[in-house]
């Protein structure tokens, strides 16, 4: 019984130490573990400007515009506080839509983000089309009521 409780202490103590070590490492590398920065972080100068990085947020409503050449797209990424204009040349993923989440990778040049890759970010909500339609109508109704 003595040896058994000693082994319990050893295993328990070892796992506890390990968790503490991993927690310290993860909090130290916090900045490198984020997949993207928000437009507000970019505005605060927290993003690695000059290097390739990613910005994530919502595609601003009414911001998508195609250039005359047909392949260059302009839009804006927002986190509702700050807005960053983006230009991108290439095909967009199917789920890329105004008002939906997106992550863009590229460089910030003179206030405009030159994206080399655009990813759509899906949220955790799954609903049938009829339900989505109902939600949309309810939001429209709320908007007209508040006006």
């Amino acid at each position, binding site marked *: 019984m003595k040896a058994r409780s000693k082994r319990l202490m050893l295993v328990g103590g070892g796992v506890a130490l390990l968790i503490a070590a991993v927690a310290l490492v993860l909090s130290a590398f916090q900045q490198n573990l984020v*997949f*993207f920065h928000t437009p507000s972080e970019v505005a605060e100068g927290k993003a690695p400007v000059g290097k390739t990085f990613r910005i994530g947020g919502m595609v601003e409503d009414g911001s998508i515009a195609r250039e005359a050449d047909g392949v260059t797209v302009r839009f804006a990424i927002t986190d509702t506080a700050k807005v960053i204009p983006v230009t991108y040349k290439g095909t967009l993923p199917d789920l890329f839509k105004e008002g939906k989440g997106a992550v863009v990778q590229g460089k910030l040049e003179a206030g405009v983000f030159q994206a080399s890759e655009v990813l759509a970010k899906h949220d955790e909500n799954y*609903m*049938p*089309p009829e339900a989505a339609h109902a939600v949309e109508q309810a939001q429209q109704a709320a908007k007209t009521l508040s006006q």
Partner: protein
Amino acid sequence: MTRPERGPSLWRFAAPQHFYPLAGRLAPWFAALAALLTIAGLWIGFVVAPTDATQGQVYRVIFIHVPAAWMSMFIYLIMAFWSAVGLIMNTRLSFVMSQALAPTGAMFCFVALWTGALWGKPTWGAYWVWDARLTSQLLLLFLYFGFIALTRAIEDPRRGDRAGAIIALVGAVNVPIIYFSVQWWNTLHQGASVSVTKAPSMATTMLTGMLVMAIASWMYTIAVVLWRVRPMILERERHTEWVAAELDRLAPGAARKSGGRA
């Protein structure tokens, strides 16, 4: 030799000799349940459940992806649990259980990564990104491979058991990292649609299909592990009389020959 009977107790099944026949008797029932639930779950998921408003049909991957991902994390935690029990209590069966679980966990982990990649291309626009969720899940697959390789590579089973148990316990730290990665850091992977702290953010039939598939994967895991554990017990206990008798029953004559060599 035998201890005085103290009435029926679950503890007696901690002995390989008693667990072996129990596993053989229970496994077919769990396999049958797994088959029934899989058929029901796939039917709900692919026939009954509606399409998703934004993703269309592609979302149906969740009926396989989510249960597989849950199971891959859960199995690793059970392996860590059995490893800790084995290290502390010195029980023979515990290490066998964790080693029998590993291949199934690795399989579910691979399925989760693979279906996720197939879903990621049409939805995100990329098969793979190095965000915290995907990277930690890939690390889980490598931990499974490491555990399997290490326990198989070490000749002496006692040393192999201990080495594997340490990988299982160390690697278990990764499981909460996978689970909470979508909350702790910005990730491309979406947050949890189903959790204990909030109401699920998905339609009821979709949720039902996913949960039925999750229970089916539990039943499948239990059945497969019970079947996998039986020959492992025979191999480890091959010097005992009951195994000699069992082998003689399975293949009359053959057991005596191999017994003579050992």
